[in-house]
């Protein structure tokens, strides 16, 4: 039987002590275990950044690609073998800066995968520059006088872009996050999780304390299927910040559903021998 430990690697993570990434790491392993998945059935794709190192420390298949580009890689892999459970992990710079375009387009494509952004509001691996989710006025190495830009709201954008599962987690609430990941994986379609991840070194604004004072978990009474309400909820910010599934739309066909070529089985299992091109050449005669 798989357990959380099934997904341990020989090496242990080398994020900073106290880093929120550990919470995401634990939650990921818990989620995979509770989904009953075996390591070889899972592919974790990531970009470059501290968050992006995740695949090295979860024993599954991994693809640690380029800064900002994990989503295209993941979509290609999923189309090639849609039996894989595909998880995509990135940072806020990775996913909302360099990779913004892929994010928007992945949302509308509804590929069946789970996309998790470990959002620490800063470029951490490059030692502390402003990110698209840094709050206005955020003092960083590249914005010594405070960021002049309004941060993006990833949840609002994801809903607007057509994502069918939009949620927010917090690495300080590992079990809750693990459940969200499970829900995301179970959701048929593109499941997006923006995850608050304190960076204890470079973000002195959005600390554990800051989050703990503000976050609350959405209860049963909240209905995530109403888009207008979901937008409203996604805009909620300030003293109280909601965690949980903000928006959900069931039943929309996935990218894989829309690809008849793989209806009978994964692309990678199709025979390559004896492909007959005579008809093609004949067309040209």
């Amino acid at each position: 039987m798989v357990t959380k430990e099934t997904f341990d690697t020989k090496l242990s993570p080398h994020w900073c002590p106290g880093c929120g990434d550990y919470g995401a790491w634990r939650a990921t392993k818990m989620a995979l275990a509770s989904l009953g998945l075996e390591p070889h059935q899972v592919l974790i794709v990531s970009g470059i950044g501290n968050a992006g190192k995740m695949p090295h420390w979860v024993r599954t298949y991994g693809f640690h690609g380029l800064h900002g580009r994990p989503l295209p890689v993941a979509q290609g892999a999923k189309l090639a073998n849609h039996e894989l459970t595909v998880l995509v992990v990135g940072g806020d710079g990775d996913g909302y800066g360099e990779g913004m375009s892929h994010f928007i387009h992945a949302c509308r494509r509804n590929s069946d995968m789970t996309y998790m952004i470990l959002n620490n509001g800063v470029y951490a691996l490059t030692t502390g520059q402003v990110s698209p989710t840094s709050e206005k006025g955020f003092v960083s190495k590249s914005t010594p006088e405070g960021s002049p830009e309004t941060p993006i709201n990833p949840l609002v954008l994801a809903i607007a872009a057509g994502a069918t599962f939009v949620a927010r987690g917090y690495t300080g609430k590992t079990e809750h996050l693990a459940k969200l990941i499970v829900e995301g994986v179970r959701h048929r379609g593109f499941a997006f999780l923006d995850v608050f991840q304190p960076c204890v070194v470079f973000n002195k604004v959005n600390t554990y304390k800051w989050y703990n004072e503000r976050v609350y978990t959405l209860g049963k009474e909240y209905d995530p299927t109403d888009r207008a309400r979901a937008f409203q909820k996604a805009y909620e910010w300030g003293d109280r910040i909601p965690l949980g599934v903000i928006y959900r739309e069931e039943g929309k066909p996935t990218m894989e559903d829309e690809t008849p070529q793989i209806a009978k089985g994964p692309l990678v299992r199709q025979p390559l021998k004896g492909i007959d091109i005579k008809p093609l050449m004949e067309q040209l005669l």
Partner: protein
Amino acid sequence: MTAGYIFSKVCARGGLNVFTATEYPSLIRGGHNIYHVRVEERELTSPIVLVDLLVALNKETIDLHKGELTHGGAIVYDEGTKLGEGEVRPDVLLYPIPLQKYAREIGEANVMMNSVALGASVALVDYDFDLLARVMRETFGGKKGEEIADANTKAARAGYDYIREHFKPTFGHRLRRVEALRRMLINGNEAMAIAAIRAGCKFFTAYPMTPISSLLQYMAANGRAYNIVVKQPEDEISVINTAAGASFAGARSMVATSGGGFSLMVEALGMIGGAEVPLVILEGQRPGPSTGMPTWTEQGDLKFVLSASQGEFPRVVIAPGDPAECFHTTMDAFNIADKYQLPVILVSDKYLAESARTMVPFDERGVGIERGAIATEDVLAATKDYRRYRPTDSGVSLRSLPGQRGGEHVATGEEHDEYGNLEEDAENRRRQMDKRMRKLEYVARELPEPKVYGAGDSDITIVGWGSTKGPILEAMRYLEADGIRARFLHLVYLSPFPAAKVAQVLDSSRASFMVENNKTAQMAGVIREYTGRKVQHNILKYDGRPFYPHEIYDAVRRTIHGH
């Protein structure tokens, strides 16, 4: 443009050889469009400038092209177009016909004019109208096409009859059907697409861009029938990363683009080099820099393609010279990519990609599919300590595919140890770099040497690469007729560079000529870098047009004869 295609097809069906070339501006409508069809009984490898029969749908066409007419050439044009006194050489035959009038009577004038002219042309060269009618039916036919086909055939008939009825058969060029092998009318894009399909490409992504858009479209059109996933993602960065993901997961994958899109793929090119993911990348050149002249041709991306992306990693670069080579090298490219787990870049250009010519169907014998070192679950089960990036003699390590039990690992473009774990140790770095680069030694051994065409004993050598093959071959015939026997060294497999062979040929040359469709003689530079030899004379062209054989002929002859 369709009319030119139909005419070509009609000739091909009659056993003739055809070479077509198109010129069109980066506009959708209007602007000046040319469809150049060359027909002979012998095999053709190149377009030429000269025109025997000019079909001019407007006055501008006559003005621009009358100078290209051969002695006794002819112009088919609308009777409404007035030609002034002496506007056209007296030896040129004029065939004013009621193009517009007939066209309007039958259907949408702009479209039908083409068909009237087509019928007239077939009449002029005394060719087979039934064949024309048949090809028209095939081209326009299909579900709703009946009506359209009928109308066009009617228009063609009108043009055909008009010539028969109103003019004496004075035009000196005739075409006749000959018995011959059945030939395809095929361009470079089609040849590559067919090869990719045959090679088991299961995943194809591209973002539209001249000159590869028609390849994307060919793949899309056939994706369903051949179970190939064909996608057009949001940009070229996504194109290559998506394909990298599919290839990593085990699907034979290919992407296609032109220089601008390739620029955007450069970062991922290095990633697949470092992560050792097989991928076939087509770069269809067009004149740069930047957007340049999008619908014209050039060979200006050579050095870029050879050295694109930061750092050092093995790549293979192949520039086929004609559709048959497109077919075979593309098949090859998939095998090399898989066997050596590296990117293979195919280089074509607008001229090669979009010029259709007649060719016998490709010989598929001896064309196998080699996927290289891919693990099975059994092998993995028997392997205690699977290491994805284990250094080997050849540099190639056993690949496991996601989904295979026991093959779990991380593929990454960041430096890693044998397992794929991040590692920055100096010794490990050298080991992994050496391992990756070692592949090139092995791949070099199996790549075909450059071919030498023509008089092997001549000491005059013309050097070319990729698509200049056809014009050079034809220029050699002109030279030969002029008493100059030259040989032609044609470079197709460009990287790793076949230095020994090139040096040997150049060393035995008294005079050498580099023919390149660019301004800075890039291949001459590459040759000098790898061999120390300088090709003596550069014949360069960078105005967006392909070489015409007589340009090469003239330049060589002038140098040899001094005039």
